[in-house]
């Protein structure tokens, strides 16, 4: 019995470690370069995650989602040319397996509902990004929802 429990504990620990270092390929989309820079620094703190590209508006995000095939897209809402919600819809039409985390300045239930309706898996507010970003990317990369 004790051996079986020990084996199970080792299995769980191994699974967690594997999960921690599971490679996640991320595309960052925000029209402000300093914000993209900050997001990149935060995401770089997680071992195994890789920021494979950046985009500064919705149109560029849709193009890069097709060419780079990221696992997760961290997507701002308010951007020039095409906003994040529209980009979210178009990206998921082309690749339903891609997971999208919306990151916005709007702390609003209505906006959250709209993001979900567009297919986003996660929603966080920019002012809490430093606190929520890693947990949110981890959740959506495992196809779990993250709403704050």
């Amino acid at each position, binding site marked *: 019995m004790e051996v079986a429990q020990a084996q199970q504990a080792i299995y769980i620990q191994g699974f967690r470690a594997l999960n921690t270092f599971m490679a996640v390929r991320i595309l960052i989309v925000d*029209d*402000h*370069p*300093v*914000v*993209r*820079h*900050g*997001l*990149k*620094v*935060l995401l770089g703190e997680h071992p195994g995650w890789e920021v494979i590209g950046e985009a500064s508006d919705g149109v560029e995000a849709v193009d890069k989602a097709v060419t780079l095939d990221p696992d997760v897209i961290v997507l701002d*809402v*308010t*951007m*020039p*040319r*095409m*906003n994040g*919600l*529209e980009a979210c819809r178009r990206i998921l039409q082309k690749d339903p397996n891609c997971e999208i985390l919306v990151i916005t*300045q*709007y*702390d*609003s239930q*209505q*906006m959250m509902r*709209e993001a979900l309706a567009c297919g986003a898996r996660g929603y966080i507010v*920019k*002012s809490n*990004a*430093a*606190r929520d*970003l890693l947990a949110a990317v981890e959740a959506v990369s495992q196809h779990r929802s993250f709403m704050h």
Partner: protein
Amino acid sequence: MKLRIMVADDHEVVRRGLVALLQAHEGWEVCGEAADGREAVEKAKQLKPDVVVLDVGMPNLNGLAATRQLSEQDPRCKVIVLTITDSDQVIREALDAGARGFVLKSDAARDLVAAVEALQRNRMFFTPRVNDMVLAGFLDKEHGGARDSAPRLPQLTPREREVIQLLAEGKSSKEVATVLNLSTKTAETHRSNIMRKLGLHSIRDLVLYAIKNNIIQVQLSNQTPRPEQESVPSGS
């Protein structure tokens, strides 16, 4: 010796971006970070940075009021103001408060390093619009100020500027007194003086005044952006 820089912005993700940008420059170190103007002033007292990069729209004490206090506290300390707008009024107040650099947040990734380099060489750094305004101001003086028709704000003392921000953020006179280490009576006197100077009659008027004059910034919360829409001011 390394140039010591302090960064103040209420959004941690923006702060991280700014810090990474500045740390990447050889010979510079970020010696401290602050999440509002008051914390920036306090930390600058202890850390004595050479340069402070200050966001304008911060809670508790905004970047313009903090610039004024930093300049008075340590005239050697050079301040770069980061702002989402280069409106005439913000430019005028930033210059008046003693800022040596003025960078738009949207251009920070491009301009911030150049701005710090300029200050390191004892020069100033402004956006093209600020340069135009400074030049226009100089020409006005040359011509006896005939073209200086822009309305000026009533003169509030630095303390009154702090009080108006805190009141507009929803604090009571008692809470203002606690934050500023004053008696409630003194806070109330500041409040009446502000209302009188500005010709305001209610706290609603005061909040509107604070928003209109960039003393506080409002985050929009219940609007859906159109499919094609530029970033709204809080921008980060």
